[in-house]
Structure formats: C-alpha cells, structure tokens
C-alpha cells in the first residue's frame, strides 16, 4: 500500500465519521436546534471533506462541496435564512456528498450532472440574497484550482531542495539587471514573527545582493523603546532577467506590514539619494556623552568584521544557537545586522552597555532566558500533553486480542490441572493462579473494550435510508433511534450494516402502511420505525420495531407452503410463521419491489447475523406492528462455553444460551406421536434434540447416563439437548470452520482445546430452525 493509499484510507475513514456527524447535526437542526454551534460543525465537516477531496483530486466532489460550503457560509453569517426548505436541501446535499465519497472510494464515476439541481439551488439561494449586496461574490466564480498534487509524496526528503528552486517564480516580465529596494518594516511585521533577515536570505537566493541598514532613526539609548522599529534597509539586487514580480513574491507575507519601494537601478525614485546618508557615516557623526545605540551597533560590527555595516549575503545564514527564542521587535531589527556574528549574544551586548542605565535594552532578553529551559528540556514526558487518544492499526489490536484469548485459555487449563492433592500441597501456587485468573480476566475486558465502538456509526446511516424509502413508497415514516452509544465489537459493527438495512427496508416496505390505510386503521399518518440498541448480559440486543400492520401470517404461510418450505401436514405456530420470513428462499414480496427486492430476502439477514455468532427473532402483532430482535455477542473473540461429550467427541455449547443441566435419568421425558421426545420442565414442554442422533454419531453411553442441557434460544424458545457427558465450563477462542472449509449445519464454529484437539461449537439456534425445516420437509 502506497502512502497515497494510506492517506486515502484515512480520508475515507474520516469522511464516514464526518458524514455521521452531519446526520447527527441535521437531526438536531431538523428538530429545531438551529444554533450557531451546529451550523459551524456542519460547515467544518463539509469543509474538511472538501479539503481532502481537493488533495486527492476528486474534482466533482470538490465542486459540489464548494457550492454547498458557500451556501453554509452564507447561512452562518445570516445572508441566507435557514428555512425548512434550506434544511431539507442540505439534507439532500449531505446524501449527495456521501454518494460522492462512496464513488470516490469505489472508483466509480457519478453522472457528470450529479447533484446539479441542488448545486443550482445553492447558487440561486446565495444569489437571491446577495443580489443587492455588492460584495457578495457569485458562487460559480470560485477559482480554486484543485489539481491532484500528491504526485511525489513518495519521494524522499524534499526538504533538502534549495530555497531558490522553490521560489523561482515565473518571470512575469523578463527584465534584465539590477533592482533597488527600499524596505521599511512596521512593528506589525515583527509582531507576526516575520523577520527581515529571512526576507534578505530569500532575496539573496534570487541574485547578488547588497544590503545597507539605515540606522538614522535609532534614538539615543535613553529614548530607546524596545518594541519600536528604527531600522530600514536598502537593498541592491542584481540578477539577469530578474522580474519585479519575483521580488514582490518574496514580500508576499509582509505585504501591508512594511513600506516597500522597488525600482530598477538608476531609475527615478532612488537616483542619487540611495546610499549617501549611509548609517556608518551617521553613527560616526553622533558621538555623544551617552552611549548611543547606533554607534554601539556600528562599533561592535566594526570590531567583529572590521568593515562598515554593509552585509553581503551570498547565501542563507544560520542564526546563532543562543538566539533560538528571539527577543522583541526593535532589537530584533538591530539584531538582524548581527546575525553574522555568532560570538555576539545579548549577554555580551548587555555587558558592552553596562555603564548606561539601560534596563530597557536588557529587558528583551528576559523572555528568551525564561524560554530557554523549556527549549532545553524537550523530554518525552512533555510531548504527550494535550493528546487524549492515539490511533492504532486494528491489526495490532487484533494480535493483542488473539494473544489474550490464548492466554485466557492457558490460564483456565492451568487451573484445571490443579487437583485436590496439588491444591492442598501448594497453597501459594493456588493463590498465584487465582491472581493470574483475575488479572487475565481484567486484561481481557480491557482489550475487548479497545475494540468496542458505539453502534452510532451504523445507526447514523439509517435516517437517510428511511428518507429514501419514504419517498419511494410514498409513505410517511419517522425513524427513532435509541441507545446509539451502546458499544459493541468493531467487527460486529461492520457486519451489522447490511442486515440492519434489510430489516429497515422490510419494515418500511411491508410493515408501515401508506397514509390512507393508516388513517383508516385509526393510526397517525406517519409510521414510526424505532431502532434501538441495548446491552443485555453478554449480549447486545438490536431491535427494529415498527408500528405497521404486522406480518400477514396467512400470506406468509401460503407462500411458504407454495415454496415447499413448510409441508402441507404441518401447522406451525404463529411464532414459527413469523420466523419464516428469515427462511432461506423465502421472500414475502409477491412482486419483487424496488426496495426490499433485489433478489435477496431476509434470509441474508439471518446468515449474516449467524456468521457473527448472533441470532434473529421476529415477533409480530396483527395491526399493531412487528419487532425484529438481533441478539449479538459482545465480543467475537472469546466465548464462555460448557464442554460436553457427544459420541465420544468433544463439543461446546455457548454458556450464554444454557438455562440448566440435568441427568437424563431424572429428566421428565414424554413421547410424542412423531416418535420424538419432549421434555417437561416446570409445566412447559420443550423440544428434545439428541445431539448424537442429530449428528449421526455412534451411541457412546447408555441413555440413562446421558445428560440434558436445557438451552434458551431467541424469543425464550427452549430446547433440550441430549449429550453423553458434561465435562465442565471454560473459555474458548472461536475459530472459523469456513476459513478452510464451509459452513456445517448445526455447528457454529470450532475451537481448540487445551490438549490441541478441535472441539465443535454447537449452533443451538441453528439446530432448532433446521429441526422445523426437517419436520416440514
């Protein structure tokens, strides 16, 4: 992966966060919270998306985002009113931006006029208000050139490039010869941390240069004001074909912070006058009782260089280290003249002017002195200030997660090795193991917390979906989201988007009625889909609920019979009928609708959710609505299980689904006409599945020595599994069977036991559904 790809990945990550943020902000704005903070956040999000798009050359996105951003800017400063129309336009615009992002990410092209209507509307809105406003620049006139510029990112150290290369501005007018520049900085120039020396250095890169400092303005030391500016310079710069524009560009940043006159050598403004009143002459003339700063400067300079205060700057000069944090304005100007004299420091200067009562002159050095220790420290401890989070590659986290998983298992293995004799003999060892177990648990929780993310990132994609569904179906649908800060493993979140999309489509398409029918049924015109997330023990429940018509059981059953999913002689319960919408090959849409259709039905939901170790349950109330519940594991990596034996082989059952276990000899079985058994537990009859039989394994133990593991599956449906033996509880790391093989009915995956052998994880929910299936077939 190249650096550019890395940046793009970062960018798309960031975009998806920003789009989420946009959804949130507009949800609030739609609800009437139209304060400046929200608008600013929206503006920033669009601005950031545009900025990145520009860097990668996604010009269509830049064009759209720019128009949108301009509108937002106008809304922000009140030039355009934030009416409901503008809000819904913005919401549409967010969707279009999202489409641009998706297209850029997948490398697809959107139609050239994509979003053109909205863009035209932005322009019209902006123009409408700014028509009388002379200053309002027309939106379409933006002249930002967004060309991809990341071309040589992979090139090493471009910083070595000499300054001259970078600033070789194209000569606008190729003029030959020599320029005279008079440069008088204002105080503001220093206040903005610009520095004449740097400007000279840049100029020097353009050609041969001579600089003369004019120190005529420097007052006697008693009048000297440290922050005032007393120096100006005259520069002669000669280079073949040097243009005025190239010189002006050097002064780009200080434009307005200085007086600058540029003239060709020998031309009017400077003729004759330029070097007559040379500072050296002035300094010599100003011999007074009181040490005068300009003479002092001249003096020291003479001592150093033995020459006049005329500096030839053939190449950039490094400042002396002592000066790192520079003092204030005026001395800074004066100091520039000293930059060539590394031996000189302010301490030296202070000593030189000792006789004079010159506290002011020494003052500027103080901040420097204070700042120095900070500069010297630079230890690692300080560097982290202000940084509350770091970004870590998910692979790295996963490596830790896996290792912690193995650690957990090793630890539980060690604990199992401790028999009573050992326990009695090595109490210290036992205590150590207990501490180890605790620490391992803590470590595991902490690591899993790193991977956890709020479901918000998935939930936030749904409002748009519901909007689209509403407009396609002509229904009125409101989406409510609850518990979007519920955290769940990142991998689970990633797998959640498709199933949720299907479920919400199903609700909008088949659940919610059109407005007329709703009114006729005595409901409000607008239907509600409620999306919620909550933690329940070791699981996360994601619930999609609607207040629509409920599942049409008659139709579902008829369809299921037609398709051979349910055999004619079977009469399923209401709950079983509801669950049929997830059966493979079943789709309730008689005419495959534009929305839910797409050739895939709700069975995709089931298989996706199963893949991440979850389950789906549906409940419906005729005329009142439907509730679909996804039960998902908090984490995918480690599972608490009960280890059992079936047909001589090891199997594990997720602990979260086990209600209780009992010996078969004490279990209350009843025969049913089909030849199967049911278990009577506390007045309830529960379907019995003999795992050995189901899995086609040889009988290993006598029936009365077997055990019953009573499990609860989705929707409180119980099932009794008959196993040969119960070994005990432990934690296991889930391994995929599909990685090297394929899905096996009744098996949710595999795991590796302490002895290195593979044990299979029983898919309790899957066993139940295949059971119905088999009966039906």
């Amino acid at each position: 992966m190249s650096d550019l790809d890395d940046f793009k990945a970062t960018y798309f990550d960031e975009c998806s966060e920003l789009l989420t943020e946009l959804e949130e902000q507009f949800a609030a704005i739609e609800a009437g919270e139209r304060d400046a903070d929200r608008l600013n956040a929206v503006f920033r999000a669009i601005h950031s998306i545009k900025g990145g798009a520009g860097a990668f050359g996604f010009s269509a996105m830049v064009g759209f985002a720019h128009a949108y951003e301009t509108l937002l800017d106008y809304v922000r400063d009140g030039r355009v009113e934030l009416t409901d129309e503008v809000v819904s336009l913005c919401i549409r615009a967010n969707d279009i931006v999202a489409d641009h992002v998706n297209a850029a990410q997948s490398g697809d092209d959107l139609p050239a006029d994509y979003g053109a209507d909205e863009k035209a509307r932005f322009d019209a809105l902006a123009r409408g208000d700014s028509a009388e406003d002379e200053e309002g620049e027309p939106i379409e006139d933006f002249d930002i050139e967004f060309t991809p510029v990341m071309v040589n990112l992979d090139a090493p150290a471009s910083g070595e490039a000499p300054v001259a290369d970078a600033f070789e501005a194209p000569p606008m007018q190729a003029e030959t010869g020599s320029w005279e520049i008079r440069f008088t900085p204002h105080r503001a120039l220093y206040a903005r941390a610009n520095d004449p020396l740097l400007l000279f250095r840049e100029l020097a890169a353009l050609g041969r240069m001579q600089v003369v400092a004019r120190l005529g303005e420097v007052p006697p030391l008693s009048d000297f004001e440290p922050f005032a500016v007393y120096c100006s310079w005259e520069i002669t710069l000669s280079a073949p074909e040097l243009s005025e524009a190239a010189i002006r560009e050097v002064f780009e940043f200080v434009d307005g912070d200085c007086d600058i006159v540029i003239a060709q050598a020998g031309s009017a403004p400077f003729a004759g006058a330029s070097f007559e009143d040379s500072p050296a002459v002035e300094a010599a003339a100003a011999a007074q009782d009181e040490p005068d700063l300009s003479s002092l400067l001249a003096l020291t300079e003479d001592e150093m260089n033995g020459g006049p205060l005329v500096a030839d700057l053939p190449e950039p000069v490094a400042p002396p280290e002592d000066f790192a944090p520079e003092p204030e304005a005026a001395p800074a100007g004066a100091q520039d003249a000293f930059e060539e004299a590394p031996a000189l420091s302010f301490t030296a200067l202070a000593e030189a002017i000792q006789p004079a009562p010159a506290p002011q002159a020494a003052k500027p050095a103080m901040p420097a002195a204070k700042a120095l220790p900070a500069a010297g420290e630079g230890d690692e401890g300080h560097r982290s200030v202000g940084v509350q989070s770091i970004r870590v590659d998910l692979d790295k986290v996963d490596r830790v997660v896996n290792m912690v998983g193995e650690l957990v298992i090793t630890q539980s293995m060690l604990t199992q090795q401790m028999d009573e004799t050992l326990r009695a003999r090595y109490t210290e060892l036992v205590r150590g193991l207990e501490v180890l177990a605790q620490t391992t648990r803590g470590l595991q929780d902490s690591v899993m917390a790193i991977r956890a993310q709020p479901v918000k990132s998935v939930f936030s994609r749904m409002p748009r979906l519901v909007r689209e569904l509403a407009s396609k179906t002509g229904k009125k649908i409101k989406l409510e989201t609850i518990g979007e800060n519920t955290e769940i493993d990142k991998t689970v979140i990633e797998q959640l988007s498709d199933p949720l999309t299907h479920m919400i489509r199903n609700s909008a398409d088949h659940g919610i009625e059109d407005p007329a029918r709703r009114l006729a049924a005595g409901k409000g015109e607008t239907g509600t889909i409620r999306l919620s997330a909550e933690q329940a023990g070791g699981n996360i429940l994601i619930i999609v609920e609607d207040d629509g018509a409920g599942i049409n059981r008659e139709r579902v059953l008829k369809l299921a019979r037609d398709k051979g999913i349910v055999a004619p002689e079977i009469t399923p319960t209401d709950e079983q009928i509801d669950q049929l919408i997830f059966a493979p090959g079943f789709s309730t849409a008689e005419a495959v609708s534009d929305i839910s259709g797409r050739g895939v039905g709700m069975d995709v939901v089931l298989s996706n959710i199963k893949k991440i170790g979850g389950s789906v349950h549906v409940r419906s109330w005729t005329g009142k609505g439907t509730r679909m519940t996804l039960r998902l594991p908090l984490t995918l990596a480690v599972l608490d299980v009960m280890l059992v034996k079936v047909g001589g082989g090891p199997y594990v059952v997720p602990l979260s689904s086990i209600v209780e276990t009992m010996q078969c000899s004490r279990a209350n079985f009843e025969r049913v006409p089909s030849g199967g058994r049911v278990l009577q537990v506390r007045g309830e009859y529960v379907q019995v599945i003999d795992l050995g039989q189901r899995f086609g394994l040889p009988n290993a133990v006598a029936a009365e020595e077997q055990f019953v593991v009573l499990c609860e599956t989705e929707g409180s449906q119980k099932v009794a599994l008959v196993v040969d033996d119960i070994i005990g509880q432990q934690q296991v790391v889930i391994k995929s069977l599909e990685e090297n093989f394929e899905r096996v009915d009744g098996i949710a995956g595999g795991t590796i036991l302490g002895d290195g052998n593979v044990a299979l994880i029983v898919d309790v929910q899957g066993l139940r559904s295949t059971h119905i299936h088999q009966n039906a077939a």
Partner: protein
Amino acid sequence: MTLRVLTVDDSRTILAMLHHTLSNAGFEVLQAEDGKQGLDLLKAESVDVVITDINMPVMDGIEFIKNVRATGQHNSLPILILTTETSQDKRDQGKAAGGTGWIVKPFDPEKLISVIQRVVH
C-alpha cells in the same frame, strides 16, 4: 538541528499528509486536533514553526493564533495558516490575529517545505 513543527488541524487526513511530508523532510512533527490542544502543546513544548488550519472545533485557528501571541512567549514563533480560500478574507483575518504567512491547500510537498523555510531560520 531538527526543526520542530506543530501542526494543528481537525482533519486527520491533512494531519497525516503534513506529518508524512514534514517528517520526510527531516522535521519533527507535533500534532494537535484543535486550537485548544495546540495551545496546550505549546505550553509544554518548544517548536520552531506552527502550521494551523482555520476551521476547527473547540478553538478555531484565528483564536488559536491570537492566544499564542497573547501569551507573549511566542512573539517570534512563525505561524502559518492553512487555507483553501483563495479569497483574501481568511488570510487577512489570520494575519490580523498574528499569522506570519499562509499555505494554500491542497499543498504540494515542495511548496510546503519552501514556505516553511521562508519563515524559519
């Protein structure tokens, strides 16, 4: 002497690009995601130049620059403004607050380095 650059931007993409370009050019790069973080960093760290975005949450670039200058400790610290605007607006605001110069986004690496060299010793 390694020059230290503080980069302040709420966009991770921009921060990552700046980091890449600057560290390739031999700078040491510090990062902050808004003006407030930038200011906190400056309290503890000495840097040679600051590059800051304007539009940021918590504390925007203009406020950030004003605050930096107001400390009185960073009067000669060059601060470069990152701007996508070609309009004079943002630059003027930034300069008025005490900004030293500006870099127009999207920046190309060479130009970025040369602008920094322009304001740093």
